[in-house]
């Protein structure tokens, strides 16, 4: 068992202090029975049997209490071999260790094959030797039984992960020359199976996967465990192709579900030089497994390759560098202008703040790459706060420079929403820059709403009561129900870019946008379209009644100074009396 003394099972203490164990002595010679009993009686409770049949009766009657059987081989009415075979064949008895009493050396190998754990020779050894061997056999058997109990996953019969890793480490130690693959296999969208068909069916699916995994890994001399939920780990000699694994598992799944809808994903990491430790190798297999799209049914096996490795190293480095990035101002913000298109001429009305990271080594890091990374890692809160602060500073500066209020929208991430400090921090950010809540619009992504609707409504209500405007970002990307929309506290809907991409006169996409605009009108909130790149898109959206637009058609995201020039130009335009009237009219709205 464990090497550490503190973690070793204290069998001896239990043995001496807690209770007396029972040993069955089986021998047809009364003298031998009595001598052996006399040696052991001080430490153990002793049961006796003089024939194989008697022995089996005793063993069956006392199976839960017997710690050991001392078994003579040659007896009338059922010899020792019969007893060994009967015990081995009965699962409920096979945990009881048996020591064979024999003077016959030639029988020893046969006895071991039949399940004996040790021998005591006749004539008997020194009693101390006998007692020590018996104590050791009992201790080992308890350890073994505990390992068996805790090493097997109850649902699938595969190894548990602890046993699996221990086994693989041992394997590596004694087979350093073998080329091994670490494999992670999971069931695509397993949570849906449980939800749709119930847990009992879900469990049957897991058992089916386990059967397939077991057969496949055994066919190559490998081992497997259920790592967690629907995730299985396999350690196997390097294979060129893993189609056999998916095929064997899919066949089992078909037997149970009678469809081919349930798919498994397989990630493989081959490390023929074992340059990394076992856990790392399985982490990489997991990365490969996760790289397979959940809905992509084409290729269900992914190999961890250099590209994935570089991406992981890159991600890890970025995470390490975030503190320095903040302190060394590697992040900066840019402004995506938003134009109000309700009037005759588009008018600059606000901006969305976007973050850029210029890494000293890698140059510009794509936000769609580092933001999810920071979200996953919990560092997004620091980044968001940095952006809010920079945005507020800039709004203040424009007020001072141009005497105008250009509100900016900032992103509020999922983790921010559950931060009890959120409102106070936002208020402080405004106070520090002598701004009002309507100078900062807050964008919350739609999927955050649908993930945790009740909690979020409360937070958003508090923000709105404090005067902030809240926009639902990426609307259409998630799965808001129409019913839910009516109860959501929002001040604007921001259409997801994907809606705009393919709109054309009278096509399906355009009808969908028109439908959403109607919903927004029903809710009494303006709609902001992002990703507008062409005049066709602009005109279609304007005609349909969209309120505000952002995108490359008007302007790419610009630096604060460039944005300043846009404000200046806007001010010049507004000096024309007609435009001025429009501004006043819209402000009164």
């Amino acid at each position, binding site marked *: 068992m464990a090497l550490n003394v503190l973690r070793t099972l204290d069998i001896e203490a239990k043995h001496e202090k807690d209770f007396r164990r029972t040993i069955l002595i089986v021998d047809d*010679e009364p003298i031998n029975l009595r001598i052996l009993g006399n040696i052991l009686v001080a430490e153990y409770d002793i049961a006796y049997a003089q024939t194989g049949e008697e022995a089996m009766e005793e063993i069956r009657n006392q199976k839960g209490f017997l710690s050991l059987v001392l078994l003579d081989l040659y007896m009338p009415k059922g010899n020792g071999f019969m007893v060994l075979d009967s015990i081995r064949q009965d699962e409920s008895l096979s945990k009881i260790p048996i020591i064979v009493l024999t003077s016959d050396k030639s029988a020893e190998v046969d006895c071991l094959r039949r399940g004996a754990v040790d021998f005591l020779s006749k004539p008997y050894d020194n009693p101390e030797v006998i007692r020590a061997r018996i104590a050791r056999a009992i201790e080992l058997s308890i350890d073994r039984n505990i390992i068996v109990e805790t090493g097997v996953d109850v649902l699938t019969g595969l190894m548990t992960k602890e046993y699996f890793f221990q086994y693989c480490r041992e394997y590596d130690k004694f087979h350093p020359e073998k080329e091994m693959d670490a494999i992670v296999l999971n069931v695509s969208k397993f949570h849906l199976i449980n939800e749709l068909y119930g847990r009992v069916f879900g469990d049957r699916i897991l058992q089916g996967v386990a059967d397939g995994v077991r057969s496949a890994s055994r066919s190559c001399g490998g081992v497997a465990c259920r790592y967690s939920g629907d995730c299985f780990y396999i350690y196997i000699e390097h294979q060129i192709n893993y189609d056999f694994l998916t095929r064997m598992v899919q066949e089992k799944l078909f037997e149970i579900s009678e469809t081919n809808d349930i798919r498994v994903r397989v990630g493989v990491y081959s490390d023929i030089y074992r340059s990394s430790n076992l856990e790392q190798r399985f982490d990489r297999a997991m990365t490969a497994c996760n790289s397979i799209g959940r809905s992509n049914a084409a290729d269900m096996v992914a190999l961890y390759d250099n590209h994935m490795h570089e991406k992981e190293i890159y991600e890890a480095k970025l995470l390490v560098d975030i503190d320095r990035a903040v302190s060394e101002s590697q992040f900066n913000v840019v402004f995506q202008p938003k134009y109000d298109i309700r009037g005759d001429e588009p008018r600059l009305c606000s901006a969305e703040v976007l973050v850029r990271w210029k890494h000293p080594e890698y140059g510009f890091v794509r936000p769609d790459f580092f933001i999810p990374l920071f979200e996953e890692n919990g560092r997004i809160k620091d980044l968001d706060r940095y952006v809010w602060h920079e945005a507020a500073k800039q709004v203040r500066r424009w007020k001072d420079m141009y005497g105008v209020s250009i509100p900016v929208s900032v992103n509020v991430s999922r983790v921010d929403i559950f931060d009890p400090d959120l409102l106070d921090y936002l208020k402080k950010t405004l106070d520090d820059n002598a701004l009002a809540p309507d100078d900062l619009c807050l964008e919350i992504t739609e999927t955050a709403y649908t993930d945790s609707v009740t909690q979020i409504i409360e937070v958003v209500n508090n923000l709105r009561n404090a005067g902030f405007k809240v926009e639902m970002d990426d609307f259409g990307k998630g799965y808001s129900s129409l019913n839910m929309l009516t109860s959501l506290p929002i001040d604007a809907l921001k259409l997801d870019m994907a809606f705009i991409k393919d709109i054309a006169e009278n096509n399906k996409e355009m009808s969908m946008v028109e439908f959403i605009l109607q919903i927004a009108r029903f809710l009494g909130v303006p709609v902001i379209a992002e990703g507008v790149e062409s005049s066709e898109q602009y005109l279609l959206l304007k005609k349909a009644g969209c309120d505000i637009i952002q995108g490359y058609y008007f302007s790419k995201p610009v630096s604060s100074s460039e944005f300043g020039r846009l404000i200046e130009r806007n001010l010049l335009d507004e000096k024309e009396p007609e435009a001025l009237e429009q501004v006043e009219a819209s402000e009164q709205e």
Partner: protein
Amino acid sequence: MTIDSLKEFGANVDEGLERCMGMEDFYLEMIELGISDERFEMLGTALESGNMEESFEIVHALKGVIGNLALSPLYNTICEITEHLRAKEQIDYKVLYDRLMSQRKQIMEM
């Protein structure tokens, strides 16, 4: 029968006593039990009738019992007969059997 007389006979009394946890009475009781085993007589009959197989089974069983009593001369004779019978040797077993019985008698008369 005493420990000393057993010693005189050539028994490995220390070993026998150790096996019996130092309990003299228990040791002597076991010897009396062992020595009065009727299989000594059965062995004679089996050998006389030339039934090697039965003879082997009997002497092998006796070996398993007497061995634990540390009665060395008696045990050695039993071992000798056992091995000849195991090898199915056609020898004059009477000599060996007589020795065995006389050793047994010696102990019984202590």
